[in-house]
C-alpha cells in the first residue's frame, strides 16, 4: 500500500503559488468590499440616514375644527356637528361587494350609494379607507359598531361637518361652506396645505367666505411611519392644530328671524343698523334658502330651482342689490340745497303736477300737483316738482358730493359676498361710461333718486343712520373674534350743518306722523318710539307718453318684473334715534303701502327686542296687524344664552 513516487516536488509548489495568487486576489476584493462598506456606512452615513428618514416618515394633516359663529346674544349660527360615516378598507373586507351586501342588511343604503362606493373602492389602494355612507343616524352607526365582528374591514367613523341651526335665516349673512373646488384653488392662491385634503370644506359665501382665514384655523400634523407602499405602520407624534377662531356677529338672531319671516316670500331686503356703534342688527334678504343643503351637497333639481326663479334667492339683496333709491334720495337733494343756502326751509315751490325743463315735461307722482310746498311738506308728501326746482338750483355735482357724505356710492366694508358700491353719478361719470354729456334732465331724475342713481339697502340704512346721528357711522358686522371685541368706528361728525339735519329729521318725522305724510298709515303710536322715515317708489321702466295718456299707471296691472320697487328708509325713535332701518321690496309697488309697514314692524321688533305690543300700533290697525304677525313662521328661542359665550 505504499504510495508510488510521483512528481511531488513541482506539484505542491505550483499549487501553492497559484493558491496564494488567488488568495491574494480574494483578500484584495474583500478589502474593496470593506472599504466600500466604510464609505457607505461611515463617510456618507449622515446623507443616507436623512434619506432613510424621508423614506419612512410621512406627514398627515389633521383638519382643525372650524370656528363657530354666534349672534350678538351668543346664539349659535354655525356649528360643527358630528358626522357619522362608515368607511371600508378593501384589504380587510375581502370582497367589497359581499361586504357591502352584508352592510346593507344593517344600514339601508340605496343602490346608487353602493355603486358609487364600489367604484371609489376600486380606485384607491386596498388599505385606504373609503367612505361608503355619510351622515348616518347614530342608531345606524351603533348597529354597525355592534356587528363589527361580522363586518371585517368596515368601521364607523366620526368627523365634523358644518351645521347651520338657524337654517335659512342666515343663509346670506353667514353663508355656507363647501368642498374646495379647482376654481377655488386657482382663485385663492392660498398655500395652506389643508386645501389639498379631499372634501375639505371652506367658506363659499358670506362671512364663512370673507372670514375664512380666521375661521379655518391651523392644521395639526401627524407624523406617521409608512412603508414603501404608503401604508401607515404607526403614529410617531402628533402636533395638534389650532382650531379656527370663533366669530360673534353683531346680528341678533331673533330680529333676523323676524325680518326674514316678515319679508316672507317677497323678493325683498331689509337692514337694521344700531346707531350707537353702527352694528348691523339684521340683514335680511328674501326669499332665502337652506344653507345646510349646500353643505350636504345640493341636488341638481334643488339648485336649478334656486337659480331659475326670478326672485333670486341665492343673491343677498341687502348688499348685492342696487336699486334706484327713488324718493328716499330726496333728503340728499334737500341737504345739498340747504347747505349751499340755495333754499330757505320755509320757501315754497309751486307744484302743478309737472315741470317743463328743456322741452321735456317732468311729472310729479301726483298728477294733480301739490300746490305750494315748503321743505317739510315736500318730503312729507314727497313732491317731485319741488326737487326738480332744487336740482336746477344746486346742480348734480353738489348733489353727488352730498350723497357720498352719506355713504351712497361707497362700498361699505362688511364681510359679505359681492357688496356693491351702487352709483352716484356726476358729469364725468356719464361722459366716461355713457359717452354722452350730462343734461339737466339727468339732474332732475337724479334729484328724486331715479335715472342713474343706484343704492343698496345697506347703503340706504347707512344713509338713514347718518341723517339720524349726524355722524359718519360705518356698518360693523363682526362684534368679536375669539372673545376679542372688534373696533367700531365712532363716526366723525358729518360736515353738514346740524340745523339743516334737524330740518330733515323733522320732515322725516312728518312723513310718518303727519296725517298728510305718505307713510302715515305706518305710524307708531307708542310714546317715545315714534318712527321717522321716507317712502320711495322707484320706477324700473320709463312710463311712455302713450301709457300716461291711456292712464295705465296702476302697478297691479303690470307684469311683476315691471312693477315699481317699494322702498322705505327710517330711523327711530324720532326724538332720540337708536336704530336705522331700510326696506326694499322688489317690484312691490308703493313704498308707503308695501315697504313702510314692513319697516314699522321690523323697527318695533328691534326696539322692543321681542314681538311689539299691539299698543304701539294705531288702534284701527291693531286687529289686522295682530292677525298678520301671528301668521309669521317665527322661530322660538327657548333658552336665552349668555352673551359672548366662548367655545365649550
Amino acid at each position, binding site marked *: *500500500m*505504499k*504510495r*508510488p513516487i510521483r*512528481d*511531488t516536488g*513541482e*506539484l*505542491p509548489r*505550483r*499549487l*501553492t503559488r*497559484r*493558491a496564494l495568487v*488567488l*488568495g491574494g486576489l*480574494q*483578500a484584495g*476584493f*474583500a478589502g*474593496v*468590499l*470593506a472599504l*466600500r*462598506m*466604510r464609505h*457607505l*456606512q*461611515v463617510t*456618507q*452615513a449622515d*446623507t*443616507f*440616514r436623512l*434619506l*432613510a428618514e424621508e*423614506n*419612512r416618515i410621512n406627514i398627515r394633516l389633521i383638519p382643525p375644527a372650524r370656528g363657530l359663529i354666534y349672534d350678538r346674544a351668543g346664539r349659535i349660527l354655525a356649528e360643527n356637528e358630528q358626522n357619522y360615516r362608515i368607511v371600508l378598507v378593501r384589504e380587510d373586507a375581502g370582497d367589497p361587494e359581499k361586504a357591502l351586501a352584508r352592510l346593507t342588511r344593517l344600514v339601508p343604503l340605496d343602490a346608487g350609494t353602493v355603486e358609487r362606493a364600489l367604484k371609489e373602492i376600486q380606485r384607491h389602494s386596498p388599505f385606504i379607507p373609503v367612505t361608503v355612507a355619510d351622515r348616518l343616524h347614530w342608531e345606524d352607526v351603533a348597529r354597525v359598531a355592534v356587528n363589527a365582528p361580522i363586518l371585517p374591514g368596515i368601521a364607523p367613523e366620526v368627523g365634523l361637518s358644518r351645521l347651520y341651526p338657524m337654517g335659512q335665516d342666515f343663509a346670506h349673512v353667514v353663508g355656507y361652506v363647501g368642498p374646495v373646488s379647482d376654481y377655488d384653488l386657482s382663485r385663492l392662491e392660498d398655500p395652506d396645505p389643508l386645501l389639498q385634503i379631499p372634501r375639505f370644506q371652506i367658506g363659499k359665501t358670506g362671512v364663512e367666505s370673507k372670514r375664512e382665514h380666521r375661521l379655518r384655523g391651523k392644521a395639526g400634523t401627524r407624523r406617521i*411611519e*409608512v*412603508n*414603501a*407602499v404608503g401604508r401607515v*405602520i404607526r403614529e410617531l407624534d402628533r402636533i395638534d392644530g389650532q382650531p379656527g377662531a370663533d366669530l360673534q356677529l353683531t346680528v341678533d338672531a331673533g330680529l333676523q328671524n323676524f325680518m326674514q319671516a316678515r319679508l316672507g316670500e317677497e323678493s325683498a331686503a331689509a337692514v337694521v343698523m344700531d346707531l350707537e356703534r353702527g352694528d348691523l342688527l339684521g340683514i335680511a334678504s328674501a326669499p332665502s334658502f337652506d344653507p345646510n343643503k349646500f353643505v350636504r351637497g345640493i341636488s341638481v333639481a334643488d339648485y336649478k330651482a334656486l337659480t331659475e326663479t326670478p326672485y333670486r334667492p341665492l343673491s343677498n339683496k341687502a348688499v348685492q342689490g342696487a336699486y334706484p333709491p327713488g324718493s328716499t334720495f330726496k333728503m340728499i337733494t334737500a341737504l345739498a340745497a340747504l347747505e349751499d343756502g340755495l333754499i330757505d326751509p320755509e320757501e315754497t315751490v309751486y307744484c302743478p303736477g309737472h315741470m317743463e325743463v328743456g322741452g321735456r315735461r317732468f311729472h310729479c307722482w301726483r298728477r294733480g300737483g301739490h300746490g305750494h310746498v315748503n321743505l317739510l311738506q315736500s318730503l312729507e308728501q314727497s313732491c317731485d316738482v319741488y326737487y326738480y326746482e332744487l336740482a336746477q338750483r344746486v346742480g348734480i355735482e353738489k348733489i353727488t358730493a352730498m350723497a357720498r357724505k352719506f355713504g351712497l356710492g361707497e362700498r361699505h366694508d362688511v364681510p359679505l359676498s359681492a357688496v356693491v358700491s351702487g352709483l352716484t353719478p356726476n358729469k364725468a361719470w356719464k361722459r366716461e361710461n355713457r359717452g354722452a354729456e350730462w343734461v339737466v334732465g339727468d339732474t332732475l331724475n337724479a334729484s328724486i333718486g331715479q335715472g342713474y342713481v343706484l343704492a343698496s339697502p345697506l347703503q340706504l340704512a347707512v344713509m338713514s343712520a347718518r341723517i339720524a346721528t349726524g355722524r359718519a357711522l360705518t356698518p360693523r358686522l363682526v362684534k368679536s373674534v375669539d372673545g376679542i371685541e372688534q373696533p367700531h368706528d365712532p363716526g366723525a361728525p358729518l360736515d353738514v350743518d346740524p340745523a339743516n339735519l334737524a330740518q330733515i329729521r323733522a320732515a322725516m318725522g312728518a312723513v310718518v306722523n303727519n296725517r298728510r305724510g305718505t307713510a302715515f298709515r305706518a305710524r307708531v303710536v307708542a310714546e317715545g318710539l315714534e318712527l321717522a322715515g321716507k317712502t320711495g317708489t322707484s320706477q324700473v321702466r320709463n312710463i311712455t307718453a302713450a301709457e300716461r295718456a291711456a292712464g295705465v299707471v296702476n302697478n297691479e296691472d303690470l307684469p311683476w318684473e315691471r312693477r315699481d320697487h317699494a322702498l322705505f328708509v327710517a330711523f327711530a325713535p324720532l326724538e332720540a334715534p337708536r336704530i336705522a332701518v331700510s326696506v326694499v321690496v322688489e317690484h312691490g309697488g308703493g313704498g308707503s303701502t308695501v315697504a313702510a309697514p314692513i319697516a314699522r314692524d321690523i323697527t318695533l321688533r328691534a326696539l322692543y327686542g321681542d314681538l311689539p305690543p299691539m299698543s304701539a300700533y294705531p288702534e284701527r290697525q291693531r286687529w289686522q296687524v295682530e292677525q298678520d304677525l301671528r301668521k309669521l313662521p317665527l322661530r322660538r328661542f327657548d333658552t336665552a344664552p349668555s352673551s359672548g359665550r366662548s367655545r365649550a
Partner: protein
Amino acid sequence: MSYLEYNLKTMPTGLRKMLYVNWALVLLLCAVAGVGFLMLTSVAGGSMDRWAEPQMKRFALGLAAMFFVGFVPIWFWRNTAALAYALSVGLLIAVEFFGTVGMGAQRWIDLGFMRLQPSELTKITLVMVLAAYYDWLDIRSVSRPQFVAVPLLLILIPTFLVLKQPDLGTALLLVAGGGIVMFLAGVHWLYFAVVITMGGGLVAAVFLTRGTGWQLLKDYQYRRIDTFLDPGSDPLGAGYHITQSKIALGSGGWTGRGFMQGTQSRLNFLPEKHTDFIFTTLAEEFGFVGGISLLSLYVLIVAFCVASALQNRDRFASLLTLGIAATFFLFFALNMAMVMGLAPVVGVPLPLVSYGGSAMLVLMVAFGLVQSAHIHRPRGR
C-alpha cells in the same frame, strides 16, 4: 491517486474521525448561520416561525449532511466525481423538460421535502469533476491544448444549460468557479489572458453594438446595466433596489440602529429583504461593525479552507477544497458587491444567511467535501 495510494493505516476510522474534523470551520459556519437566523427573525418583525425556524431546521439537516459527507473517504468522492457531474448535468437537462419555473428564472425539481435546483448542485459537481480530472492528468500535460479543451467542455456544457434557463448569475459563477480550478491546476496563464481579453472584447462589442441592428443583448438587459452604472437615473423603477439598499446600508452608520430597529428593511422599502438583500438589514441594524464582522467570518472560512488545502498533499483534495472555497467566496463577494452597488443586481444569495433551502444544503454538502478532504488527508512520511 487511487485509494490504494493512501496510507490507510494512518487514516482515522469510525468515530475517531470526529477528532480530525476541521472544528474551526464548523464553528465559523455555525456562526454565520447564526447571524442568518438573527437577521431572518428581524426581517420577519421579531417572529421566528416565518423564516428563522425553517432555516434552522435546514441548517441542522445541512450540518448532518456535512458530517455524513465528511466521514466518507475522500477517494470515494474522487471516484464518483464524474458520476456526480453526469448526474447533475442530466438533472439540468431534465429540468428543461420537467422542471417547474418559479421566481422567473430558477428551475427546480420538487423532491417532496425540498426543492432541488440542479444548477446549485452543478456548481459543486463541476468543481469536483475538474479536480478529479486534474488529479488524473499528468501535471506536465495540463497546458496542452487537447487537455485544456476537455475541462473547457466540462464547464461550457452546464453553463450553456443554465444560460438557457436563463440564469445569468449562476452561469457566470460556473464559468468563474471552473476557471479558478483550471487556474489552480496550473494551466498556462496565457490561456487566461486570451479568455479575459476575449471577454473584454465581448463586453466592448456588447456596448458598441447597442442601438444598432446587431445588438447582442435585449433592451431590458441594457437597461439593467444602465441602472447598475447609475442607479439614480431611475430611482423609482429599476434603480430602486440599489438605491434603497444603499440608503439602508448608509443609515446604519458605525454601530447601526439596533436589532429590529432598521426602518428601511422592516418597512418594506427593501426588496427581497429575506433573501438576496438580507445583508442590508444586517448593515442597517448593526452598522459597519456588524457588516465588517460578517465579512470577516466569511473571509475566515475561506482562509481556513485555503490553509487546509495547502497542508494537503493530495492533489484532488487540495484542488477541491480550493475550488469550493473560491466558489463560496464568489457567492458572498458578489452578493455584497451587489447590495453595496458595486455589481449589478444578478440574484446571488448571501451564502448561509439568505433564506433558501437548496443553496444552503448544497453548500453544506460542499463543506462536507472539504471536511472529508481534511479528515482523510495523507499523513506520515
